[in-house]
């Protein structure tokens, strides 16, 4: 293929008037299109500008101010951690859609464990595709009054829901255990009808956190040995993937009176070399098990761990399987699971709580 034009190139002298005319036309067209486009975007959107006695303004976890309807009757939920909160507040019946990887095999169970799917009565009929992009028009066609998401939803998708469809989008993205409790209060602001349930939930979560903190403080004053802990959500290529500083996994270990062997890592979700784990010999190994989910957490079921995790048989610490969603999704269930973690790390001091883990 030749990039070269004719060997007798045309003269570089331009026929200015014609070219100038073309430029003027195109520049004018460009400016006109830009002005028209801005006009279309600036038109008031009925939904986004709605206000009145049936509405309130809240500040979400990202500091966004959002005007929302009180006691919205149609909700779209875009993360399992939000669904947990919605369910506990008795709002499940108002959920008209949940985010899921609908186009991939596994459907709703790519994001929701079988336990969650069953408990929350979720089905593929509720699915709104959210991978790799959220089906924003699908959300709009469900005519929700409120969309509750986390930072797992891209900022571009959140902007589209808000600006294009005028939907109020609240982001629940707590960064601490206390933040999870704060989200209960935020939900109660948006759903005043749930106030009694929300108050009870907030009190219960606060008490559970206080108990764990008290136990943890007591350990240091009593001089009780602090167990070293590996909390891992998967293994790959000779590494155990774990929760570093600033993660909820780290907070769980701290509150349960343990010392994470990943505490000194510079990264949040780093891989620990399996041989260094072997040398460390953590006292307790909490290993995250999934439900054979091929996309999100590696598909590592308990049998996969015991058969193929590196140096598994040579790790002498107590090995405890943990539903990976509990250590990963920042929701009330994470806090209510703390008594079980306390028992796992201090079996002689903390009796096994009655009932099943949340």
């Amino acid at each position: 293929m030749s990039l070269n034009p004719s060997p007798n190139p045309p003269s570089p002298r331009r026929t200015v008037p014609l070219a100038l005319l073309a430029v003027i036309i195109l520049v004018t067209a460009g400016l006109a299109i830009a002005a028209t486009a801005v006009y279309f975007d600036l038109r008031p959107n009925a939904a986004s500008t709605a206000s009145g006695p049936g509405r309130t303004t809240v500040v979400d976890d990202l500091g966004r101010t959002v005007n929302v309807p009180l006691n919205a009757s149609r909700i779209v939920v875009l993360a399992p951690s939000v669904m947990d909160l919605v369910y506990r507040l008795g709002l499940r019946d108002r959920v008209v859609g949940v985010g899921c990887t609908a186009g991939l095999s596994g459907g709703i169970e790519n994001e929701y464990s079988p336990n969650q799917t069953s408990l929350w009565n979720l089905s593929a009929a509720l699915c709104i595709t959210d991978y790799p992009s959220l089906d924003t028009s699908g959300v709009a066609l469900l005519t929700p009054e409120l969309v509750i998401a986390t930072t797992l939803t891209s900022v571009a998708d959140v902007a589209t829901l808000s600006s294009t469809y005028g939907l109020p989008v609240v982001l629940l993205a707590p960064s601490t255990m206390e933040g999870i409790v704060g989200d209960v209060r935020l939900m109660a602001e948006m759903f005043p009808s749930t106030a009694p349930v929300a108050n009870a939930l907030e009190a219960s979560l606060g008490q559970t956190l206080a108990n764990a903190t008290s136990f943890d403080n007591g350990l240091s004053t009593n001089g009780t040995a602090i167990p070293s802990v590996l909390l891992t959500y998967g293994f790959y290529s000779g590494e155990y993937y774990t929760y570093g500083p600033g993660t909820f996994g780290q907070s769980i270990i701290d509150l349960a009176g343990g010392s994470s062997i990943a505490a000194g890592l510079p990264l949040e979700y780093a891989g620990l070399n399996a041989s260094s784990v072997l040398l460390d010999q953590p006292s307790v190994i909490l290993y995250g098990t999934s439900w054979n989910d091929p996309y999100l957490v590696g598909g590592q079921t308990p049998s996969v761990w015991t058969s193929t995790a590196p140096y598994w048989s040579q790790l002498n610490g107590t090995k405890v399987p943990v539903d990976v969603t509990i250590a990963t999704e920042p929701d009330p269930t994470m806090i209510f699971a703390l008594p079980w973690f306390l028992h796992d790390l201090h079996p002689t001091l903390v009796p096994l709580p009655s009932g099943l883990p949340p």
Partner: protein
Amino acid sequence: MGAVAVRPVRGGETPTSASPWRFGAVALALLAGLVVLLGLSALVGPHWLPPLAVFAILLHEGSGGLLGSACGGLAPNPATCSIWTEVVWDARVPTLLVALFCGAALALSGGTLQGTFRNPLCDPFLLGLSSGAAMGASVLFTFQLALAEQATLLPVFAFVGALVPGMVVYAAARRFAANPEALVLTGVALSALFSALLATFLFLNPSGGLQVSFWLLGNLQDQTWTRAGLLAATVLIGGSLIVLYGRELNVLQLGPEVAESVGVEARRTTRRLILLSTVVTAVAVAFTGVIGFVGLVSPHVVRLLVGPDYRRVLPLAALFGAVFLLGASDLAQVILPQIFLPVGIPTSFAGVPFFLYLLYRPGSRAR
């Protein structure tokens, strides 16, 4: 690189530009394809809407409410009609306009850089614009800047990130305009540098990868009228200025010395074309991320159809790029309606076989 890739001009070579009739026919065919695709694209989406209702919405909204009725009376109730209107007019139309102008921008930019650097392998991303944009976006997420305003700042950071490598190459062109290989290699080096920075950021903050993956995969979703307008204005204004340099680009193919001898200021022309291409590409990348192949293949396809004269190649490449990206986007949505396939994937799947066919078909100039 360029010395290897560019065939030297030999005396007595037959002029390869096609006739004006051929140019007109190709232009008309592309324009017709564009019009058809624009109409079809409004019908395509993850959710089926009645075609007549879609066209009624286009007519009604496009005429400012003067023509037709909202949804053509096909919606079951006003609330549903309102949502259909938002889906079609406020989501699908801006998206297809962004696809159109983004395709044009990438193709125009690719053709310009291939001519400026006299290198057929050039495309807008060879200069590091894509990795610069992704790196710019990742800064926003890695350092958790302006959490509540990230959606607004995202294209701004990406745009600035894309400008950086382009401006470095532009600055380098002040001294090395006569050495296109050095300029291209500068871009390649910058691309590697920004890729390394991006990888470092993602390593430090893996959760930021979710947001940045938008740039890495290319995505036409989440477009707005403002974005479409900004891109349209940039492409039409920047593109028309680029097309004006068609003659100079033709002369530059003979080398800077020859160009200077016939009155073309090679150094200044090179710098201006790099600047214009960078700005046009940076705006497109800021809104859509990295969409590969369009910028590389479109000028080549057009060259195969109408010859190497840049006065013809550049405007037709823009048209072809628009048709190509719009078509690839529609194809992806028709084949996999449940998955928002990053548009860079269908552009490659659809484009590579077509490109290879054009290259090796009987009678092709490339054979």
